[in-house]
C-alpha cells in the first residue's frame, strides 16, 4: 500500500496566480445523450489478488452492531462484509446461497425449520461459530430492550432450539411464505461469546463497546473506523472460503459533497462511487479513468395520495391525476435511458411482476373528462377547476436535496396545469417531510419506496397499517385479504398469482401514481473488475471484486 505522491512546492508557487476555471461540472439540465452504458468490463482477464479499493460515500456508518441503527444502507453494507448471515439472497430472488448455514430443511408440517451450520467456520479470535451464536442472535433480535427495527419479522417464531453445536431449529406458530427469509437472510449472526457479556438493556447506550469487543467471520475484518472520515477493512485470514477476497484492503471514505465524489472518481483517488446522478454520466464516460455501470434499483418513485382526504379519496380523481401526468416525458427529461415508467409496485425486472398491468397512458382529454364528471369545472376561467367554490389545489410534499424529485415536481406542475389542476410543490427537510407523512398532513407525498424481497406489501397497503407505513390511508378489504393470503401461502412462489392480482387492483385504485423505477448509476474505476453490484447491495459479493495492479508496481 503506497501513498499517492504529491508535489507540494509547485502548488504553493502557483496558488496566488489567477485561475481560469475550465470544464466546471458539465451539469446541464438535459438528459444524457449516451445509450445504455451497461457493463463495459469486457477484456478483463483473471482476477488479480491484492490491491486497495477506495470508495467514496456520502454518510458515515453508525455502528458495528446493525441492530442499533436506523435504516442505514451503508451501515448494513459494511457489516455484511465482516459478519455473515445464515443465508444470502441472490439477485433473481428465487434462490438462496448458503453462508453460515450449509443446508436446511422443513419438517413435514413446515412448522420447524432446521439449519445445519457449516463446520469449521471460526470467529476471528479462533472461537468456533456454533448454534449457540444463532440462539443468542435470535434473543437479541427479539429483545424489547434492544428494540431492533425489524423485530416484527420474527413474530411467528415461537422458539429457537439448539440441537447440537452445528444444528439449530426455528419453531414457528404457523407456516407461511417467507419463513426462511425472515429468520436467515434478514440480519447477520452475532458472536455470543463476545457480545453476551453486555446485558441487552445496555446495548443502546454503549455503541463503542461493540467496537471494542468486535470479532468477525466474514471475508473482511475491521482495521479501523475514524468517525466522519473512513472505515478501513482488510482481508480476513480466517474466512472460510478459499482464495477470496481478492482485495487486500477496502476503504470507505466519507465524502459528504456529491460533486467531490465525482472529482475523486475522475482523479483516481476513489475507485468506486455507488451513486451518481444522470448529469455526471457524460463526464465519466468521457474520462479514461472510469466507466459507468448500472443496475435496476429495487424500488420506485411514486406520489402517494392521501386517500382519506377529499377530493383524493375518489379513485376517479386519482386516476385523472395519473392520466394527466406525462410520465414518459418526466423520465426522458430527468433520467434519459436510466429509468422507466412503471405501473405497479413490482417492476418488470422482478419475478413477481404482472406484465398484464400496463401503465396508464398520458391522456389529458380523458383526465379532464374524469375531473368534470366528478364535478370539477373551471367556472371562473382562471385555469384552475373548482367545485362548490373550492379550487382544485393539490399540495405535494417531497424532501429537499433530491434533484430528480424536485425537477419532477416542476414538470408535473406544468403538466397538471393543462388539465386545470393546481399542483403546489412543497420541498421540505427530510425529517419534516417524514413527520407530515406520518401525520397524514398532505395531499400527496412524492417519495421513494423500497420493495421488500419478501414481497410483504402489508406495510404499504394493508388497512391495519394506516397509522404506520400505509400513511396514505389506503383501505381496500380485497387487498387486505390478498396481502394476508400472500403471507399465508406455503412458499413465495405459490403467492405469484396473488401478487399479480394485487398489482391489478392497486393499479385500478391508483392510491399511488407510480412514476418511475430508476437505475443505480455507479462510477467504476477502469482498474476495478468483477463488480457484482445489484439491487441487493452496492457492494454485493465484494469478495469477488478485484483491482488491476497499478502501473509500475
Amino acid at each position, binding site marked *: 500500500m503506497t501513498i499517492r505522491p*504529491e508535489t507540494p512546492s509547485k502548488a504553493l508557487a502557483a496558488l496566488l496566480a489567477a485561475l481560469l476555471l475550465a470544464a466546471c461540472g458539465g451539469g446541464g439540465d438535459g438528459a444524457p445523450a449516451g445509450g445504455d452504458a451497461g457493463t463495459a468490463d469486457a477484456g478483463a482477464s483473471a482476477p488479480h489478488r491484492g490491491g486497495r479499493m477506495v470508495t467514496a460515500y456520502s454518510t458515515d456508518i453508525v455502528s458495528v452492531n446493525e441492530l442499533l441503527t*436506523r435504516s442505514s444502507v451503508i451501515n448494513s453494507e459494511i457489516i455484511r462484509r465482516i459478519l455473515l448471515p445464515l443465508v444470502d439472497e441472490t439477485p433473481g430472488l428465487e434462490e438462496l446461497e448458503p453462508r453460515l448455514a450449509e443446508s436446511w430443511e422443513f419438517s413435514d408440517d413446515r412448522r420447524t425449520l432446521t439449519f445445519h451450520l457449516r463446520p469449521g467456520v471460526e470467529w476471528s479470535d479462533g472461537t468456533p461459530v456454533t448454534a449457540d451464536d444463532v440462539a443468542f442472535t435470535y434473543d437479541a433480535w427479539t429483545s424489547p430492550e434492544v*428494540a431492533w*427495527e425489524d423485530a416484527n419479522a420474527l413474530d411467528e417464531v415461537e422458539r429457537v432450539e439448539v440441537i447440537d453445536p452445528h444444528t439449530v431449529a426455528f419453531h414457528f406458530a404457523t407456516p407461511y411464505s417467507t419463513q426462511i427469509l425472515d429468520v436467515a437472510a434478514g440480519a447477520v449472526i452475532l458472536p455470543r461469546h463476545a457480545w453476551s457479556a453486555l446485558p441487552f438493556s445496555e446495548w443502546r447506550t454503549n455503541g463503542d463497546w461493540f467496537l471494542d469487543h468486535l470479532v468477525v467471520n466474514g471475508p473482511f475484518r475491521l482495521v479501523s473506523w*475514524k468517525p*466522519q*472520515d473512513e472505515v478501513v477493512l482488510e482481508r480476513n485470514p480466517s474466512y472460510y472460503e478459499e482464495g477470496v477476497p481478492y482485495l487486500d484492503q477496502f476503504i470507505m471514505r466519507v465524502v459528504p459533497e456529491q460533486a467531490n465524489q465525482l472529482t475523486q472518481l475522475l482523479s483516481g483517488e476513489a475507485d468506486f462511487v455507488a451513486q451518481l446522478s444522470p448529469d455526471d454520466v457524460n463526464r465519466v464516460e468521457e474520462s479514461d479513468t472510469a466507466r459507468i455501470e448500472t443496475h435496476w434499483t429495487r424500488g420506485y418513485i411514486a406520489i402517494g395520495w392521501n386517500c382519506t382526504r377529499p377530493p383524493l379519496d375518489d379513485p376517479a380523481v386519482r386516476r385523472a391525476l395519473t392520466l394527466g401526468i406525462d410520465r414518459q416525458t418526466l423520465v426522458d427529461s430527468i433520467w434519459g435511458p436510466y429509468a422507466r415508467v412503471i405501473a405497479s409496485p413490482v417492476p418488470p425486472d422482478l419475478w413477481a411482476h404482472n406484465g398484464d398491468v400496463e401503465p396508464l397512458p398520458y391522456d389529458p382529454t380523458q383526465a379532464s373528462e374524469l375531473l368534470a364528471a366528478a364535478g370539477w369545472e373551471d367556472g371562473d376561467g382562471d385555469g384552475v377547476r373548482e367545485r362548490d367554490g373550492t379550487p382544485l389545489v393539490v399540495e405535494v410534499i417531497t424532501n429537499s436535496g433530491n434533484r430528480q424529485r424536485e425537477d419532477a415536481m416542476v414538470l408535473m406542475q406544468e403538466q397538471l396545469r393543462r388539465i386545470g389542476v393546481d399542483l403546489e410543490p412543497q420541498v421540505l427537510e*427530510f425529517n419534516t417531510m417524514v413527520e407530515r407523512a406520518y401525520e397524514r398532513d398532505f395531499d400527496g407525498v412524492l417519495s421513494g419506496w423500497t420493495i421488500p424481497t419478501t414481497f410483504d406489501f402489508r*406495510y404499504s397497503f394493508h388497512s391495519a397499517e394506516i397509522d404506520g*407505513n400505509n400513511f396514505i390511508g389506503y383501505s381496500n378489504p380485497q387487498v387486505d385479504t390478498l396481502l394476508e393470503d400472500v403471507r399465508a401461502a406455503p412458499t413465495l412462489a405459490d403467492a405469484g398469482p396473488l401478487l399479480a392480482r394485487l398489482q391489478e387492483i392497486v393499479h385500478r385504485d391508483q392510491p399511488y401514481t407510480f412514476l418511475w423505477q430508476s437505475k443505480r448509476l455507479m462510477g467504476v474505476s477502469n482498474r476495478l473488475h468483477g463488480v457484482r453490484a445489484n439491487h441487493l447491495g452496492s457492494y454485493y459479493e465484494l469478495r469477488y471484486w478485484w483491482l488491476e495492479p497499478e502501473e509500475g508496481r
Partner: protein
Amino acid sequence: MSRYLLRRLAASLLLVWVVVSLTFVLVHAAPGSPVRVLGGQAGGAAEQERRLERIYGLDRPLHEQYLDWLASVARGDWGASLATGRPVARMIGEALPNTLLLAVAATCVEYAVALPLGIWAARRQGKPADHLIRAGSLLLYSVPIFWLGLMAILVFAFLWPVLPPGHMTSPGAGAASLPARLLDVGLHLLLPALVMGVVLAGSTLRFVRNGLLDVLGQDYIRTARAKGLSEGRVVRVHALRNALVPIVQLLGLTLPTLLNGVVVAEVVFSWPGVGRVMIQALNSRDYPVILATTTLAAVLVIAGNLAADLAHAAVDPRLRRRTA
C-alpha cells in the same frame, strides 16, 4: 478588575445557559424525532417508535427531560448519542482537535493575508494599489467558501493534481510513521485553510486598512511626523500599536463567522470535524449531540468575546482605569 471579571463571567455563564435552554426547547419542538422509523418496509412502526421513546426517556414530560439533562451535564455526563449509542463527549472530543486545527490554520492565513495587505493599502491610500486591494477584498468577501472550495478542489486536485481532494489524511494512513502522518495532515490542511483564510481575509483586510487609516489621521501621528521620525517608524511604533487594539476585539467578534466557515469547509473538504458531527446530529434529530455541540459553540463564542474584551482592557490603558 477582578470584580469586573467576576461580573462578566457570571453574565457569560448565564448567557450560555439561556442559549442552551433555548436550543433544548427548539430542538424538541422541531418536526421529526430521533426515533421516527424512516425505512419504508418494516411493520409495526408506531410500536417501534413508542418502544424506543420509552428506552430513551423521550416519552417523559419536557421539563423532566430538561432537568435530567442539566443534572447529568452538571455531573460531566453528556450522555450517549441516540443515533450511534456512542458517548457524546467522545464523539465531540474526537472531532474537536480537527476543527481547532483547521480554524487556527485558517485564522493564521486570514491574518497573514489581511495584515500586510491592509497596512500596505492604508499606506498607499488613494493610489492604484489601494484600489486594487480594496476591490480584491470585496471579491473575496463575496465569494462563498463553499463555491471557492469546490473550485479549488477541482483545480488543485483534479485538473492540476498537486493537492489532495479533501479529507485530513490519505486513505488508510493510520499505519505510517509519525513524521509521515504529520506531513500528510499538513498537506491536507493546505487547501481548506487557504480557502477559508482567504475568504475571511476579505473583510478583515478592510478592517485593518480602515483602522490604520483612522489612526494615521490622529494628532499624535502628525506630532510624530513633525518630530522627524521616518514614516516606517511612525507606522510601526506609533500607529500600529493603536490600530491593533480593535483587531484584538475583532478576533473575538468574528468567532461566530469563523465557526460558520469551518462547518462549511468541513463539508466541502470532507474534513472530519465538529461541524460534520453537528450536521449529522441535526439530520437525525440526535438531541444529546445537538445540545452538546450547541453548548460547545455557545461557550466558544461567548468565551471568545469575553477574552477579546479582557484583552482589549489589558491593551488599552484607558479602559483599565475606568474599570478598576
